[in-house]
């Protein structure tokens, strides 16, 4: 038992510890750094690009999470109804999630291509726009585009977990509420939503963590551009630390993500505590 625990501790904490340590050094690739205190952080504090990446990360995480939640819940509600070909649709919904991220990112890269974008083409054919949209070349468009790609990729996880949650709500509660006089909206508001909140809390915590630390999509689609408009903390950390060779600085950016992640975990820890109505005896 003890050796296993020790092993686990080493495996889990060594990379983290090393990362934190690197953040306090001026290590470069191929040169072990020396301790320089919080110099990296002081530098980042006055670095506009770093702050832009913080802003981008928050914008990306918050807007993508809200969209994923709204669309995922909507999809889960639809899939929970008695549709024909139910299991077929459920399988289809999972697709964006099982496709390797890099592959879907490449697909989006093609969809957003400034010359051959199928989206632009379709909108042009419908007569909605008169010239091609510069999806990834314009800062605002690029932000919206990467958020849309992330939402597309993240919806299945939200939809399927919420669907699993919906299926645990007994049908008789809906029947009882119907007899009590509830409309469809009131069924959702007073039965579905409150009974689903524990699952929503778990799902959205994971979704926020995934989104906050997202790297692959951005790296394939924009590499942080144009003019850093889509740089997230994760991509900036990689660019500075690995591509740019400034290991210490890259590590410091990554370490700067930890407070945000801790805040998210704490938030969910309190959000996830068993609600009063979930406590007490069996069923």
């Amino acid at each position, binding site marked *: 038992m003890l050796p296993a625990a020790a092993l686990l501790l080493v495996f889990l904490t060594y990379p983290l510890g090393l990362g934190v340590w690197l953040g306090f050094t001026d290590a470069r690739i191929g040169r072990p750094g020396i301790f320089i205190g919080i110099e990296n952080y002081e530098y980042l504090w006055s670095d506009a690009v770093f702050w832009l990446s913080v802003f981008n990360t928050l914008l990306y995480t918050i807007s993508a999470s809200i969209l994923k939640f709204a669309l995922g819940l909507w999809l889960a509600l639809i899939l929970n109804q008695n549709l024909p070909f139910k299991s077929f649709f459920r399988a289809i919904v999972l697709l964006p999630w099982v496709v390797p991220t890099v592959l879907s990112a490449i697909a989006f890269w093609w969809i957003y291509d400034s010359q051959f974008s199928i989206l632009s083409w379709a909108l042009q054919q419908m007569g909605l726009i008169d010239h091609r949209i510069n999806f990834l070349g314009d800062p605002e468009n690029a932000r919206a585009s990467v958020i849309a790609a992330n939402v597309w990729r993240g919806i299945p996880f939200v939809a399927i977990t919420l669907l699993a949650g919906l299926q645990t709500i007994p049908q008789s509660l809906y029947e009882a509420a119907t007899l*009590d*006089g*509830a409309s469809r909206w009131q069924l959702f508001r007073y039965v579905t939503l409150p009974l689903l909140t524990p699952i929503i809390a778990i799902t959205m915590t994971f979704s926020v963590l995934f989104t906050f630390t997202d790297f692959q999509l951005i790296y394939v689609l924009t590499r942080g551009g144009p003019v850093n408009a889509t740089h997230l903390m994760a991509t900036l950390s990689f660019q500075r630390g690995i591509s740019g060779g400034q290991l210490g600085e890259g590590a410091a950016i990554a370490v700067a993500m930890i407070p945000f992640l801790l805040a998210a975990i704490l938030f969910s820890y309190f959000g996830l505590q068993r609600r009063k*109505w*979930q*406590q007490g*005896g069996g069923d």
Partner: protein
Amino acid sequence: MASVAIDEVYKSFGAVEILHGVSVNIEDGEFVTLVGPSGCGKSTLLRMIAGLEKISRGQIAIGERVVNNVAPKERDVAMVFQNYALYPHMTVAENMAFSLMLKGVSKPESDAGVRRAAEILGLVPLLARYPRQLSGGQRQRVAMGRAIVRDPAVFLFDEPLSNLDAKLRVQMRAEIKELHQRLKTTTVYVTHDQIEAMTMADKIVVMHDGIVEQIGPPLELYDRPNNLFVASFIGSPAMNLLRGEIATGGSPSFRGAGGISVPLASALSIPNGEPVVLGIRPEHLRLSDDQGIPVIVAVVEPTGSEVQLIGRTAGGEEIVANFRERHSFTPGETIRLTAEPSLIHLFHGETGQRFQTRTDQ
């Protein structure tokens, strides 16, 4: 309050028809139980009254209004579910107030309504608890409270006691009956337990495989079952049934397997040799010294208030007899049992329909 008229109602799930033309009239204020074996369509019929299942054919009226196309919430019925279906995220008080809240009843008025129902059911100390923090019997009471708060035209119960232990079931049975005597709301109560049906109902509807076998007050069903199904379903221990035929030579009698002969009431209009099933309730059998059906004693079960005897006739058919007196029997001995001819039931050997006897009129 309202009457409920169920008229030639059919129900199919896909291609499978499970109710084949059911008609029941329920008077205003009546307590009616639907009873029958598992799968006979009791819950389905109840859910059709509530509006939770569509009516395939026929019609159901509540009061003067045909409700076939009326939404559940417009029907003014309250239902108590087998699993109670309490909202787990609401306290007892909130559960009971939910329907009032949806109706837009003011808070003080709704509080007063909840309070009144809670007092009737002894739920006042539990109002702030959540369903998970209640025992089975308490949940059951909350489910009833939720129904009475609404003061509906009709109460529907679907096997509300089947999740409770035997003792609590007897207690709740009395409570529900008392509640009905107090509120006088029309009640339809589904159960597969015939004792529950007998003890609670003004009127029993016996169902079997999607049809109604018989409708009547409990004692009428007990004393004059229309057919073999009702005869064997109502009553515990069940009625003894012996197969045989009618012999009309001299005074009419029943001749059964193993040379059994049972004298019947004299004015009998059944032809000689007709195959019949003879039915005798266990408590109607008497000990006799020299005549009656010879029975070999198999098991004797004294319960204190009575002695139950299980034996076998010479034809190998099982017979159960109940005696209020404390006879002592030894397994293996042969005794003789008789019954008053007026207490004997006769059913047609093939159709199972009852032959009317003189005492029926």
